[in-house]
């Protein structure tokens, strides 16, 4: 695209509380989103992610605390600085893409010439060029999510907020959506994205806030989160001819604890405490059982496991 979307935004959420009746959905939520960063909100179902994002776009008023956009307290006047896409596509399916673009563009008071220029570029980015006259209901699931992103960006927002944008898509479509989000972020748009697809987010986001029962547990980079919440490592191994049962027994004989072993296709993985000790024991065991190594890796466990642990 070659153009950098204007607008450098920072979102600061301070001690936000939101109640529905007697139920407190968000309690003392605080975090900060840096300019042009891609910030993840991770939480299990019912943690309060959608409520938090609805507060960030101004759909819900907060009961306590504050939300600041570029240092200013969030008001209705900031509506045009925020773009939003939800886990359900937010447009009219019974009219064409062009009609949707015209309608939402006008709703945000985008001048016509500018609107169609931006729409054209965004449709190119999202791979929807040529579908302008198609009725929205005829788009595929992935195309709908991408078109939703187009609509969210029509008015050139400073901050784009995405609520589980890849939920329900097959792996290929998910990857397409994530790629598109990264492209948009690469253009300088600050993005806040929520998901329970944690493995995807850890590769995508600069920072992640962990939301649990309406409270932010912490905000940090994905690697820092793994460090904070896990002292173990995951060893993933592929050998030939693949007699993994004998191999694991041989490792254990050398006083190396092997926890949570599991086999997927031609690989076996298990948790270890000390990587150095484990590599040494593996080397001995391979010789003893006459196995040849094809691939081996040792890494911190994914956020998926982390959330399971928190849950």
């Amino acid at each position, binding site marked *: 695209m070659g153009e950098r979307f204007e607008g450098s935004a920072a979102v600061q959420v301070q001690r936000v509380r939101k109640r529905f009746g007697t139920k407190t959905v968000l309690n003392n939520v605080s975090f900060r989103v840096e300019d042009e960063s891609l910030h993840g909100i991770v939480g299990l179902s019912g943690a309060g992610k959608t409520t938090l994002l609805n507060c960030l776009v101004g*759909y819900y008023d907060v009961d306590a605390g504050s939300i600041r956009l570029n240092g200013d307290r969030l008001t209705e006047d900031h*509506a045009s600085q925020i773009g*939003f896409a939800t886990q359900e*596509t937010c*447009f*009219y399916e019974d009219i064409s893409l062009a*009609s949707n673009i015209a*309608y*939402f563009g*006008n709703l945000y008071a985008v001048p016509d010439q500018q609107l169609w220029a931006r729409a054209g570029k965004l449709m190119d980015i999202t791979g929807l060029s040529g579908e302008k006259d198609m009725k929205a209901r005829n788009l595929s699931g992935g195309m709908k999510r991408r078109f939703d992103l187009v609509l969210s960006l029509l008015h050139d927002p400073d901050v784009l907020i995405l609520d589980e944008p890849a939920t329900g898509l097959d792996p290929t479509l998910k990857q397409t959506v994530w790629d598109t989000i990264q492209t948009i972020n690469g253009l300088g748009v600050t993005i806040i994205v929520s998901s329970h697809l944690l493995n995807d987010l850890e590769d995508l986001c600069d920072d992640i806030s962990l939301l649990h029962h309406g409270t932010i547990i912490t905000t940090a980079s994905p690697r820092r989160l793994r460090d904070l919440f896990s002292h173990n490592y995951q060893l993933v191994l592929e050998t030939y001819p693949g007699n993994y049962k004998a191999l694991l027994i041989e490792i254990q004989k050398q006083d190396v604890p092997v926890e949570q072993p599991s086999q997927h296709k031609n690989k076996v993985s298990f948790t270890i405490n000390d990587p150095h000790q484990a590599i040494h024991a593996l080397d001995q065991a391979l010789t003893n059982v006459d196995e040849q190594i094809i691939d081996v890796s040792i890494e911190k466990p994914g956020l998926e496991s982390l959330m399971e642990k928190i849950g």
Partner: protein
Amino acid sequence: MSPRQTLTILYTTIKKDIQRLLSSQFNAGLLILGPLLLIGLVGFAFQDNSLNDVTIGVSGDTASFADVEQRIQAEGYTVQHYDNNQACISDNSDGETGACLIFTDTSPTTIRVYVDFSRSQFAAAVLNEVNNVFDRVRREQLNDFAASISSGATDLSGELSTFQDRLINVRSSLNQTQTSISSASGEQDRIERLQRHAQNMSDWLNETQSYLGRVDEDIQSTKERLNNQRGVASTLLDQQGCANDYPVLAERSEAEQRSILNEADNPACVIIWNQAQYFDQQQDTLDSIQSGLHSQERRIISATNRLDNLTNQDVSASMTEEIQSVVTSTLEQVEQSTADLQGLTNTGFLSTLQSAETGVNPFDIEVHRHDDLSDVSILDILFPGILITLISFVGILIGTVLVMKERTSNARFRNAISPAKTWVLRLATTITGAGLSAMQGSIVFLVAYALFGLNTVFSPVLIGFFVVLGAVFTILGQVIGTFSPNEEVGTLLSIITAVVFLIFSSLITPLEKMTPWLSTLLTYTPFNQGMRVLRRQLLFDESVFSLPLSLSVLIACFTVCAIIVYATDERSL
């Protein structure tokens, strides 16, 4: 947000709503072809104003009412005879006949009409038609009566005129006789001439006597007709309970009579009594003429006898003069009588006799449409109801559907977080519904006007009123949509609301038939007030602004609904 931006959002939202409503061919077809189909059916169905295929049951003394029965058949209705009254009534209540007419042999004769009021519109239509039949029969009978009287009067007048001519001839002969006698050369010659002329005179007088007899018969016949009418008037006076006043009034002075009659409780008595009085006056006049003619007849007989004698006897000069005097006197009397009758004819004798018929039928009630409605068809009369029904159904349904579609649409969230004010979006919905309702009303109107001869004028003010009506019903639909839990319930509620409006309007059952307080309350529904204005505009060609109360009710209704719709926070629902 600037006014220009607000207008842009309004425009683009209306455009979007219309695009959504027309998103399927079925929807588009329904919106455009629906009203065409409706008016096509209605316009075709009500091209003919008369009632079709209606059977009228008759029972009782049908022979006395042959005129009525013939007229019913002449109007295209089937007549079914019943042997007993109860069967006639029973078949009517079963819907076999449109009306049951029972002819009674009371004096004066009465026709009892039974119609099924549970089908009030049909009953009213049948009653109207039956009443028209009675009216036509009554008029035919009146015409026959008037023609009969007129014929009698004309005959009488003709006879008298001929009689007068003959008397003139007689006088001329007498004059010639006088001249001839005067110019006689001697007494003998004079007597011979007198005898010769006397013979001619005798022939003339015999013939005149015969004429007088015929005139007398004509006068007698007219007197009998008058007497007959007076008898009917007396019966009517008795029926009205004022028979006793008649002889009493007759004895009073004219001023007293007028005073008493002006204060009479029953105006029918006044009408009938005046007619009876008139009959008496006419009778007196004819009596006087008849008496005069009888006198002349006697004198002519006497003169004829004298003349007969003259032909055989000697006649003295004095006798000749006496004969001449008799002839001259007779001539004068007949001329006077002829002048009297001619005067009666010329000064409204016939019209007086016709007005006497009014006395015989003092309650000749004619049901008239308003002048403005004299040329209207059934379609014209139905049209305000059709329009208000169409606009209310379309407005309420579109209002509800648009709100429900918006509420159930995922796009709702994007709208909610946009800078556009909520009231602008809701106003756009109102405008869309009002516009589409007005468009449908206009289509129906134009088709009815162009193809089915709707008898009214299309005006921009009318379109404006369609928009107002559409806005009122659309905002009502928006209220329903706002509080309905889902689209199915919303649609059902909107249809129920529209149907309730229809039921509680005078289109199906007159409001006046309902419980008084409910009737008063229901008068102020937007449906009824809208119809009131449309009737005024379409049927009576009066401005929609001529009913400020109705317009105020519509505006108040819109305002209340608008407050509810615009003040409701969807997030709280």
